[in-house]
């Protein structure tokens, strides 16, 4: 009987199947309006596109309704969520999250995801994704008294059903963990698993690999036969694609320094520094190819006045900083 609600959707003939370039345009608009470039100007452009020909608005309506139906189906099958997602600072109105999840498709999604980024968490309905934009930081308080500080441009998965667990997908986070020897806190990353032994530690995950700094207590990297223990004042680095973990000494006070606007480096490539600056400032910072081998040791103090910051960086790093619409570029 349910099926009967579907029958009053009448698809305009020209929108049925076929290659229909108008439909393709409508789909492209639908995607772009949900993407990072969706600002007021894009919506005005979209208005003009619909005004150009009545079939445009018809095509878009069909696309939006089909997608809306998918949303309904996802909502219908997802367990009622008593827990509000924490992400608010994005393009989407909080009133109707279009990203509603379902255990059903998500499991399928994570299977595919696993092919790309193993080892991977197999998602369950209690999993919540929390993301920060570049330039934005966020503090998350967990039920057990532990806290997680997220630096900009970071995505983390938390599981309501597994309190002592987090997965850092990308970016940087500092964990201040209430130790419980019966229930160790586990952080999963794309380059291995960390287990806390009573700890404050900072984790950075990027495409280049994993970096963990410990300021208090200790953690275990890849618990198991090959476990590496990292104690306070030590830093662990795992380059993606290489199995060996390298542990070096660091100043424990420098761990998680990004929270005070201080970035500390020991022999770090400029590309790493550029990535950190982008994350903290919310402005893209790139490095010209001839500088990629240049390395830096020391502390950079983030000044919110970008022009001033980059003037200082020029002398500190021995580079030129150029500002354009695309952000800052460091050149020789």
């Amino acid at each position, binding site marked *: 009987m349910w*099926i009967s609600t579907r029958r009053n959707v009448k698809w305009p003939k020209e929108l049925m199947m076929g290659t229909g370039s108008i439909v*393709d345009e409508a789909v492209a608009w639908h995607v772009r309006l949900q993407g990072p470039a969706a600002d007021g100007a894009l*919506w005005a452009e979209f208005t003009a596109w619909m005004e150009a020909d009545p079939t445009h608005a018809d095509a878009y309506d069909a696309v939006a309704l089909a997608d*809306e139906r998918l949303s*309904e189906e996802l909502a219908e099958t997802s367990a009622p969520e008593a827990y509000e997602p924490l992400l608010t600072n994005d393009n989407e109105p909080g009133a109707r999250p279009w990203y509603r999840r379902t255990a059903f498709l998500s499991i399928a999604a994570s299977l595919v995801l696993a092919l790309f980024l193993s080892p991977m968490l197999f998602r369950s309905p209690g999993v919540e*994704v929390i*993301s920060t934009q570049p330039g934005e930081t966020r503090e998350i308080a967990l039920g057990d008294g532990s806290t997680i500080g997220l630096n900009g441009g970071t995505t983390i998965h938390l599981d309501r059903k597994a309190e002592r667990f987090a997965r850092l997908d990308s970016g940087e986070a500092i964990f201040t963990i209430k130790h419980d020897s019966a229930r160790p806190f586990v952080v999963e990353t794309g380059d291995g698993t960390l287990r806390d032994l009573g700890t404050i530690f900072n984790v950075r995950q990027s495409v280049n690999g994993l970096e963990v700094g410990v300021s208090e207590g200790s953690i275990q990297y890849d618990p198991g036969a090959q476990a590496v223990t990292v104690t306070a004042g030590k830093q662990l680095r795992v380059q993606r694609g290489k199995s060996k973990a390298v542990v070096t000494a660091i100043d424990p006070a420098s761990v998680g320094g990004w929270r005070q606007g201080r970035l500390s480096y020991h022999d770090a490539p400029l590309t790493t520094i550029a990535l950190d600056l982008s994350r903290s400032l919310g402005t893209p910072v790139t490095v010209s190819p001839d500088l990629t081998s240049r390395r830096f040791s020391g502390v950079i103090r983030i000044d919110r006045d970008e022009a001033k910051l980059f003037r200082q960086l020029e002398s500190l790093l021995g580079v030129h900083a150029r500002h354009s619409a695309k952000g800052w570029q460091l050149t020789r």
Partner: protein
Amino acid sequence: MPCRKDEDERAQRLMNRSGGLEAIFMANRPALSRYLRVRLRGDGDGEDILQELWLKLAGIDASLIAEPLAYLYRTAENLVLDRRRSAQRRIAREQEWTKGHIDGSMAAPRDAQPSAERMLVARDQLRRVDAVLDALPERTAFAFRAVRIDGVPQKQIAAQMGISVSAVEKHLQRGYRAVLELKQQLDVDIDAPQRQVAEGIDDGDR
């Protein structure tokens, strides 16, 4: 319209003070109205939706919103979709009622369906979506699932896959196109037996 005058006064006050979402609304009211007019395709001038949108803005902290104007457009679009959906449900209920009289058996309206049944139906639909996605290239299906189902931002999935946002857009377009075709196909399949029902060939009281 009396409310409009109140609106103007209120907006003026807000603009004088801080200039939040409501001020952005007032400044862009003509553009939003133009959007709604064309988006509704002749089904009203959108003034009622603008009113509704205005009412929704009270109590929203504008500082939490990165692109306030895009947010206003998106909220207006959601109101359009709400309206489209409830209109569809109303037509469905009316057809149900008429059909009940023809058959001599009153069918339960969809809204009265037990939620367990609705969930099974939705699951069945999602299974079909899943099958359609499985038939797409692996990376296309991955991008679509991550963005549309898991809500990963496009930018982030671009970084994760090591491609540009516009390349992610291409994957998403293919995914949406496939889902759209599936939904249209389902409607066609479903239309046929329904016409038979109208002709009196029913398989009994479901």
